[in-house]
């Protein structure tokens, strides 16, 4: 079953979100409600193999 792991830094402003078990872009589109709820800024994403469904590289994306 797909999972979302949210880890909250003790600095009061940084949240890490890890998703697993999703295929393709579902991991972003189905969990972005949390980004929006937290008023996310300075968002940095690292896409992994599952995101590309067979791709072989990770990619960093920064959204401000």
């Amino acid at each position, binding site marked *: 079953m*797909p999972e979302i792991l949210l880890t909250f830094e003790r600095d009061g402003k940084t949240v890490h979100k*890890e*998703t697993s078990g999703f295929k393709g872009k579902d991991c972003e589109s*189905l969990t972005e409600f949390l980004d929006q709820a937290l008023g996310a800024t300075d968002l940095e994403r690292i896409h992994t193999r599952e995101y590309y469904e067979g791709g072989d590289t990770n990619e960093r994306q920064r959204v401000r």
Partner: protein
Amino acid sequence: MSHLARMHTAVKDSEALIRALKRVGIPEQRIEYHEKAILARGYHQEETFNANVIVRKDGFGSDIGWERNPKTGEFTAHLDEFHYRNQHYSQEWQRNLYTFYNVEKCKMELDNKGMEYEEGTDNQNRPYIRARVVLEDNSRSRTVGARR
């Protein structure tokens, strides 16, 4: 793993802020919420400030409060020097408060979607939430739903 994201957050939800205040030990009866900001009491009677969320003073000092910026929706804290000096609401206290704000805000969103989750603390003493996702296949789109 599908993706990792690291984000910085903003305090925009009064209910999550009030939940966080309770988690850091503020008694419910000292917390007020006003949709329209009202005057709170500073250390001296003449020093007042506007706030939507107010924690009334506990015997001495002043109220503390958070005022919503009508343009951004973001809350700004009002804490005076007295509190910093006396460590009533230190920077560490504030960091702890906003950490729990983030936790409570996420729990509210997960509850709204009927999602199951567990809350805990990791080996670095960081709070975490692990949520299980049930995917619902609709004809045109996929959504997140509650476990049936």
